[in-house]
């Protein structure tokens, strides 16, 4: 089996490159940057890659640095990278956790895909992309992945409710809320899970908690889409669902 097929790159919660049957040498930061950039790349053009990895030096020097890093990467982890003309990509068999997350999210967000094969996977709930890395291309990609994960978790919660897998639905909804506590659509998903569980008190509690949070943060009330989920006066509801007063 080719070495590339045994290689796994992890970018969520920090960088690592591992082989299935051996431990590669510790990669210098510049090599880690190259592997991470190739792992996240949608543009394999080496001009673009050199410009992103070495943005503050002349183009010729950036290309020289890229050639050097590429040579070192091939020495330290043979078979990880494929070069074709001006294109630079990870070898086909290299596994990347971010790509697995994207594939999972694509499945979740595909309306034609039911939830029989979907689950709240561990890596979905894990931390952010390359924490502590401040390069522009990392910051932007971190935000894109965060949004993707949040949307997918909300949709997954609803799909799992429909399938009656309410424990997992609750886990997905809570994870979405954790990602952005002020996002109403995530809280709506959470309320829907409580309602599906028959936990009306929990649904009202979740609503009131979000309503108060929103009032404190923005001085606004939840949208009608949120309030419509609950009917005032149901058992377990001890507080009217009137909007919190606006903060002026």
């Amino acid at each position, binding site marked *: 089996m080719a070495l590339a097929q045994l290689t796994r790159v992890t970018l969520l919660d920090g960088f690592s490159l591992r082989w299935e049957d051996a431990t590669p040498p510790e990669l210098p930061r510049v090599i880690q940057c190259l592997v991470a950039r190739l792992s996240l790349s949608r543009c394999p053009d080496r001009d673009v890659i050199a410009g992103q990895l070495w943005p503050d030096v002349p183009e010729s020097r950036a290309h020289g640095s890229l050639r050097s890093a590429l040579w070192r990467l091939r020495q330290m982890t043979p078979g990880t990278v494929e070069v074709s003309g001006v294109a630079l990509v990870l070898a086909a068999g290299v596994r990347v956790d971010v790509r697995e997350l994207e594939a999972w999210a694509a499945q979740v967000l595909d309306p034609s895909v039911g939830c029989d094969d979907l689950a709240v996977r561990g890596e979905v709930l894990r931390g952010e992309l390359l*924490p502590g890395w401040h390069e522009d291309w990392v910051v932007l990609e971190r*935000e894109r992945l965060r949004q993707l994960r949040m949307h997918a978790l909300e949709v997954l919660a609803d799909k799992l409710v429909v399938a009656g897998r309410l424990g997992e639905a609750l886990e997905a909804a809570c994870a979405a809320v954790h990602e952005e506590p002020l996002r*109403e*659509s995530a809280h709506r998903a959470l309320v829907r899970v409580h309602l599906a569980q028959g936990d009306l008190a929990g649904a009202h509690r979740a609503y009131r908690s979000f309503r108060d949070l929103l009032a404190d943060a923005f001085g606004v009330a939840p*949208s009608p889409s949120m309030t419509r989920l609950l009917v005032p006066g149901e058992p377990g509801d001890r507080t009217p669902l009137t909007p919190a007063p606006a903060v002026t």
Partner: protein
Amino acid sequence: MDGDRSAVLLVRVWLEDGARSFRGRLTTLDTSAGRAGVDAATVALASSPRDVVEAVRAWLTEFLGDAPNPIDSDE
């Protein structure tokens, strides 16, 4: 001002179904050399263009004045 200092300000805005205004969170990240590992911190929540612009101005003033004071940071 220390010439090696740098920072990122991330403006996240989103629209909720049926809501009359957007909602936004402004998050800062100190990207100065040697500050790796410092968590991002929320500097403002905003729901109007004016709020966002004012928050950006205040953040920049603090950054230039070397007085970072994110609202959910211990600093």
